[in-house]
């Protein structure tokens, strides 16, 4: 099924992920996953860790036309190791015909990817496991009600940071952590940019070894916005430089898109209730300045 995807018109018109899942209306994670699944195909086994997408499959309903294994929050990469090793053993001993082989996919939220699952992730990369890791990043522990996670951005309000300054930390650099392991491929994507996403999945699919697809997942429920805005907010994340679209491959980081001019981050922040405290009852110029400065510093380093 792989003619190269070059234009929007080339995007798959048959959608493989089943309807009827309990993901929220307008879920940016589901947005990314349904696009990814169309390119990856059904000869996949998704190994899942605890998060919002645990609930993709609730007995007896599953949206997958391929396979799925639910593990636990910290250990989806270890589950993928077991599946991949077993498939390789079966293939080598001719107990499985080659056409029955499966791509091993890990699917987790940011909670597992940025935190609890880092140990098993690091080790799987270190062992050069041939797997594709998909992280839907909604910048908090979403399934439990959007508590702060290591992926929460500076000054965002969450269920555990309800004060006027929001989350005091900064978003962890998971892209950098993966790149430091020198894996086969790392890419950021977003469902709002489907052509960029599809090309990157095609590329990832053609490679072997540890690969990460890190998808920002605008979250109507957790970020507090109308579901209809889900794609526009994703586009704003890219235009404002909050979400760089980039790849790591062969030891180099490539930015696929340098927003120019770069929209002021306020345009992005204003769309979401989790940042409303920065504008109302009065503007918090200090925090807004910190957020803008952090983004400016990132892009200044890119342009060097």
């Amino acid at each position, binding site marked *: 099924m792989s003619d190269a995807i070059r234009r929007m018109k080339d995007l798959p018109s048959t959608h493989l992920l089943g309807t*009827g899942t309990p993901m929220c209306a307008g879920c940016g994670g589901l947005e990314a996953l349904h696009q990814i699944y169309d390119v990856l195909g059904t000869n996949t086994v998704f190994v899942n860790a605890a998060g919002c997408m645990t609930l993709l499959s609730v007995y007896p309903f599953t949206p997958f036309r391929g396979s799925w294994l639910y593990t636990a929050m910290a250990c989806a990469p270890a589950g993928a190791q077991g599946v991949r090793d077993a498939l390789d053993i079966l293939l080598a001993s001719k107990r499985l015909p080659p056409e029955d082989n499966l791509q091993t996919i890990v699917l987790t939220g940011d909670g597992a990817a940025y935190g609890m699952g880092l140990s098993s992730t690091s080790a799987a990369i270190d062992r050069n496991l041939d797997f594709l890791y998909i992280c839907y990043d909604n910048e908090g522990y979403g399934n439990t009600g959007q508590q702060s996670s290591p992926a929460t951005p500076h000054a965002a309000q969450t269920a555990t940071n309800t004060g006027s300054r929001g989350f005091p930390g900064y978003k962890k650099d998971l892209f950098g952590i993966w790149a430091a392991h020198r894996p086969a491929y790392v890419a950021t994507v977003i469902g709002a940019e489907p052509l960029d996403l599809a090309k990157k999945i095609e590329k990832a699919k053609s490679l072997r070894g540890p690969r990460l697809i890190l998808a920002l997942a605008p979250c109507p429920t957790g970020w507090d916005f109308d579901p209809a805005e889900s794609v526009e907010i994703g586009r704003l994340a890219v235009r404002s430089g909050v979400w760089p679209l980039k790849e790591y491959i062969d030891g180099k980081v490539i930015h696929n898109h340098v927003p120019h001019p770069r929209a002021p981050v306020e345009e992005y922040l204003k769309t979401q209730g989790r940042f409303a405290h920065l504008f109302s009852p009065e503007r918090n110029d200090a925090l807004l300045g910190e957020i803008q400065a952090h983004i400016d510093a990132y892009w200044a380093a890119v342009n060097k």
Partner: protein
Amino acid sequence: MVVLDGVGGVAGRVGIGVGLGEAALAANLDEAFSAFDAMAAHEGVVHEGAAISARAYEAPDWTDLPFEPARVAAPDIFAPATSVQVRTGLWRTMRPVIDYAHCHRCVWVCSTLCPDSAIHVRADGAPEIDYEHCKGCLVCAAVCPPHAIQAVPEHEAAKIEGGGAG
């Protein structure tokens, strides 16, 4: 539009109209309060029921669960995409409706960007919304380049079509 806490929503903030202004907020609060007042006519219909008697009750139909082998008794699903049997179309309060007169057939936009895979591409190349499953997020209406998708309140649309989501 009133932004209410839903399941998983950011705690404790009701009514912050994100950039939509005081007038819209006031109008919505008016609606909400009138709806609440309309409930007054039903006051007293729900009351605490009688305790179930321990003298005269329907005995539970207990069974000795038979042992069943693992190929039956493991939490596994052996068919693809059984989720389509869940009618998430029942979630909708607003229904997106395609005006085919203005639709440009750029299905790579709406069909790709529907998060739920609920927009099919017909044989003739036109998009078709699967109302059994459409959750009414209205992303399609927001992204349609010729603005050919309108949002219609679900109860009105259901009256027109004589069936709604099901």
